[in-house]
């Protein structure tokens, strides 16, 4: 879970888009290209972002999840219908709108199974993030949690027993804790 430590007051909940823009920029390496694109009638995109491989249409939900989902879908439809227009507005260096699109929805009340349902029925990838408000209502902190599908989550590391057999290191007598600690100490490399 990634914790955003920057405190916000109840009055500044309207600034959620800035806070989440900071999150996706710093934690996910995205470039935020535009805020509040489109309109409430034909579709709105709260944040338009890219990482050079995809275009991300980010919807920040402040109400019930179904409404957020619907808003995200209409935003995607607006994006599709206006892709050529956006291609003329933004240079390819800013954002290549021909890249595959990916929807991101942030919501406080994502129901269980929602990631799997989205994966089954949607033709574009949908990434769900649950956010929570902590602390005093007038001065809350925010945490954000990615609800990735199991196959999108990091590969589950093999157990120490499997590792001992697979790597042929049984005779060294490494304990389970030693193997796990080593893995944690070394971290990811290449």
């Amino acid at each position, binding site marked *: 879970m990634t914790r955003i430590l920057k405190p916000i007051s109840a009055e500044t909940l309207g600034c959620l888009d800035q806070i989440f823009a900071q999150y996706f920029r710093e934690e996910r390496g995205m470039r935020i290209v535009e805020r509040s694109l489109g309109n409430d009638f034909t579709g709105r995109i709260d944040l338009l972002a890219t990482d050079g491989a995809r275009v991300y249409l980010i919807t920040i939900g402040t109400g019930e999840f179904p409404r957020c989902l619907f808003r995200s879908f209409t935003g995607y439809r607006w994006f599709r219908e206006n892709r050529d227009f956006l291609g003329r507005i933004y240079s390819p260096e800013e954002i290549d709108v021909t890249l595959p699109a990916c929807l991101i929805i942030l919501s406080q009340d994502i129901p269980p199974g929602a990631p799997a349902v989205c994966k089954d029925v949607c033709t574009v990838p949908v990434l769900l993030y649950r956010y929570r408000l902590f602390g005093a209502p007038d001065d809350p902190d925010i945490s954000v949690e990615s609800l990735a599908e199991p196959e999108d989550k990091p590969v589950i590391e093999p157990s120490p027993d499997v*590792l001992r057999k*697979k*790597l*042929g*290191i*049984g*005779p*060294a*007598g*490494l304990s389970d804790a*030693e*193997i796990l*600690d*080593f*893995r944690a*100490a*070394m*971290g*990811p*490399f*290449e």
Partner: protein
Amino acid sequence: MEQVNRLGRGIEDVSRLYLSDTPRSDGDKGEKGEAALRRRRVVRIINPGSALMGAFFTANFSLELARHRHRVAIFDGEAHETDGVEAMLRNVVYPESGAEVLSVRLYGIPDISLYRARPDGAERLFELARAAQSYGEGFWLVVNTPHRMDDLVQGPAGFDAVLLSTLETSPLLQCYAYVKLIRQIDPDSRISLAFIDPASDARAMDAFSRFSAFALERLGACVDYLGRIVRDELMDRSIADHRPLVLCCEPSAARESIVAASRAFLQQRGALPPE
């Protein structure tokens, strides 16, 4: 064995070996003192991730030790026909008359004997290890060690180890397991680590810092750093041509990295003055 014309080496090859920066007298004079007596004469090259790279490093590392006027014998524990040490040296090695021992003879460096594991590998290794200790200073038995920990446990004690690894976690864990095992077999062993083809010096240094800190904390083991072994086109060609990389005269980052690692190995053991 196929007869290869070994007279084709150019003057540059020969010059490189003649131009060793270690004075010839050093090898004769040897070292004195307790440190020299304590020093292990057997060096096990262990690359759990790749037998080919282990054999490649063994061959070139041995040649580099010889270039620094050390007497060297190689024991190939892998003894695989296509990716063993013999294959790596095929262009410069030939059988000694009436023996199963092969020999590398090059201008300007001491002859290198190459012993194969088969048919009596385990016994032969014990014999050679005993002989190596009795030869004393200025002699190294370099053992290309296959990744079979049981063999290491049952083999002769009293050796130093050079571990080779990439930066992936699995081979690093294997190396850590070797550090632990070697400490159990011989607490006085000196263990060195070199990284095969890491993306950068910075990544390699970061990985080594973490690895050595963990080994020190958990095992009380000090691990020396030999640097990173770079891969390049010439390395691949030298393997394919069965010609040791350190004998090639073209510019090569890979060759320089092996030369630097060998030098670091000797310097860490006081067998070569620091630069």
